[in-house]
């Protein structure tokens, strides 16, 4: 009898412990939620005012709502960061009952974190999605049922068809692209002039000739931070846009059926073209030991004439370095003489909504407001966005991209980044195999393409 009693007591003590622990847990939650509750109750009179102002705000009752948002990227170097500062502030102004909690992670961590959260059923209400089949691509996210169908929203007429399609699965859009990104070569106009290059090269042979001139004049023609393996893509996709796709725009669709392969002569040639730049010593030697930020520094310090990267890197490329010079931007011409240059341009990432969000309606209203084409929030978004807008009537902000963009718009000569049609992982194999070439191993272009094809076969599932 006594022992039973003490057993009961033991259980009671043990469960008390659990309760205490659980209390700790819920306490934390309260702490996290409390600021939003406090601020929204303070602001509740204006909440009703804004609700009556826009009749569509069915969910914008005074009930406090906290939305979570997870995006990738790095915080703006100076001034207000759009996603971290401006967006929550302007959302709060328009919807006083809505608190937006934004978290921004570096790319690699973003992928890991958002996937884990989504898989655990605790996904953020708003998150960043990439076009088509890229890592965290629209197709994959939609298929898994994580992203909400956005076709009911009203602003789609204002968005370019291409941008919408790249974010669609089975004809329905799942994310709103931030804009369009173009890969290209940023170049140092002063160094080009000094080396006696009067105009931007328009085909592969003249590009090689220009590089040779730069090298002869004693500057590093191209600097790449190959220690960050992904930068290999920046040159490679531009060459693929000229060498692979113009003669067969459906190359990647045919890959899925096995009609074409990454080992086809066209891809081997693409890899060989890029290899040439290293073989001839046009890319800074030791590039494998240099990180992309370090490479960028070499460029802004005027030590190298070109760097391959995309429109998103404009802030970094135009940062002040040891040398003052004028920057330019052109598409790396992988084409034969006499053929047109194709640019490598693609839809940028964009925000999507969590299909399982408790506050999907509120989130949709934020989207309506953000993308309505005139609101202060829309203006702020356009202002802060380095990508080229895909919304009708938004003028180009950055003069440096004008030539390339006009060319694309007038001729339509552009193809997407190849990895947007590959399962995530193929580009990694391309990078690590190509690194062997950079590192002076005996790897050939054929080896690179074979490894890519093998990975594609392993990863592609209908």
């Amino acid at each position: 009898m006594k022992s039973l009693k003490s057993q009961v007591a033991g259980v009671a003590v043990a469960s008390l412990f659990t309760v205490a622990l659980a209390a700790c847990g819920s306490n934390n939650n309260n702490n996290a939620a409390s600021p939003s509750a406090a601020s929204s109750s303070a602001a509740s009179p204006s909440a009703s005012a804004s609700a009556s102002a826009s009749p569509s705000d069915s969910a914008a009752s005074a009930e406090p709502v906290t939305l979570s948002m997870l995006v990738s990227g790095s915080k703006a170097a100076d001034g207000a960061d759009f996603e971290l500062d401006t967006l929550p502030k302007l959302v709060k102004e328009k919807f006083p009952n809505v608190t937006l909690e934004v978290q921004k992670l570096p790319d690699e961590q973003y992928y890991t974190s958002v996937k884990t959260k989504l898989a655990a059923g605790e996904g953020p209400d708003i998150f960043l999605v990439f076009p088509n089949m890229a890592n965290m691509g629209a197709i994959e996210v939609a298929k898994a049922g994580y992203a909400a169908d956005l076709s009911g929203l009203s602003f789609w007429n204002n968005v370019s068809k291409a941008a919408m399609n790249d974010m669609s699965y089975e004809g329905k859009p799942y994310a709103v692209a931030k804009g369009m990104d173009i890969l290209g070569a940023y170049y140092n106009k002063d160094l080009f002039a000094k080396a006696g290059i009067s105009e931007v090269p328009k085909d592969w042979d003249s590009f090689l000739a220009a590089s040779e001139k730069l090298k002869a004049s004693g500057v590093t023609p191209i600097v790449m931070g190959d220690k960050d393996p992904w930068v290999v893509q920046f040159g490679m996709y531009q060459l693929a846009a000229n060498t692979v796709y113009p003669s067969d725009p459906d190359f990647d669709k045919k890959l899925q059926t096995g009609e074409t392969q990454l080992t086809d002569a066209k891809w081997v040639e693409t890899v060989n073209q890029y290899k040439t730049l290293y073989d001839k010593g046009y890319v800074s030697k030791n590039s494998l030991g240099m990180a992309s930020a370090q490479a960028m520094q070499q460029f802004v310090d005027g030590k190298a004439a070109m760097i391959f990267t995309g429109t998103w890197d404009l802030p970094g490329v135009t940062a002040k370095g040891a040398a003052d010079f004028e920057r330019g931007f052109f598409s790396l011409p992988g084409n034969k003489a006499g053929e047109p240059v194709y640019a490598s341009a693609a839809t940028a990432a964009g925000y999507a909504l969590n299909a399982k969000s408790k506050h999907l309606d509120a989130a949709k209203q934020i989207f309506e407001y953000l993308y309505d084409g005139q609101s202060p929030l829309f203006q702020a978004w356009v202002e802060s966005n380095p990508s080229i807008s895909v919304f009708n009537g938004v003028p180009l902000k950055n003069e440096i991209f004008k030539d390339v963009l006009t060319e694309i718009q007038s001729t339509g000569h552009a193809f997407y980044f190849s990895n947007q049609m590959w399962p995530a992982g193929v580009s990694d194999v391309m990078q690590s195999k190509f690194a062997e070439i950079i590192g002076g191993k005996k790897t050939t272009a054929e080896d690179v393409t074979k490894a890519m094809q093998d990975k594609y076969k392993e990863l592609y599932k209908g």
Partner: protein
Amino acid sequence: MNSAVMKKTMFWFVLPALLFYCLFWVFPILKLFQYSITDYNGYVQKFSYVGLDNFKTLFHEEILGLSIRNTLIYTFVTVILGNIVALAIAFLLNANIRAKGLYRSAFYIPTLFSAIVVGFIWSYVYMPDEGLIASFLHKIGINGIDTNFLGSYDKALYSIIAVDIWKNIGTSTIIFLAGLQTVPTDLIEAGKIDGAGRWKLVRYIKIPLLATSVTINVTLSVINGLKAFDYPFVMTNGGPGTSTNTLIYAMYKMAFTDQLFGKASALGIISFALIIVITAAFVFTLNRREISA
């Protein structure tokens, strides 16, 4: 049966901790075994069972052998070199020198930084042409040495290992130092009376009595080496190519970049087995050698 030491009911106090342990440690490990025979991508909850396919592909690919090789090199070098250097430093710091405290702190400082910080700093030290080492060599007039440490297939792995040793040397040194201070002075005096020289004192008295510290340090660095992930992740991204992929790094890459959670789980199980075998072997052999003072 009532124990004289503790009432049986007191075992209930273990329950909360045990629950958490099972929930966050045992259960996930069991899940790993389940995932290893599926094509789970870590993300979409629908997956199918594929039998031993994951293991078969792994054994066909070069990444398994390569990452095991890298991990073993990593472990071997950190264990041997790390401990020899630490032992040497411990002897130095145990000697009667001036400003002993200062030196002891100096050697311990790197240990205080996180691996991320250390990795980041060292990637600038190693930067070709412009880094600390390269510019130092340049300053003292040595040119023509290839300073591309992290970008070279032959040197990258060893460059990373050097950083790991640099960072962890403080911990091993402290353990050795503590061990040295427990060496009884009467034994040393007895040795001296018997005519043992300085080297003989070290070889036949101090080192045998340090056996416990050696076991601790070697085991710790074996485990540390087999789990190597931070420095390849921060400093080289496993590159150039795949040349600095360790087991854990390869697993991470497979799970989160390739989105092959099933395959990564299979690799996890292989390395799990490997690490257990190696650690067990080490502990048993070293335990047998220990001498009690």
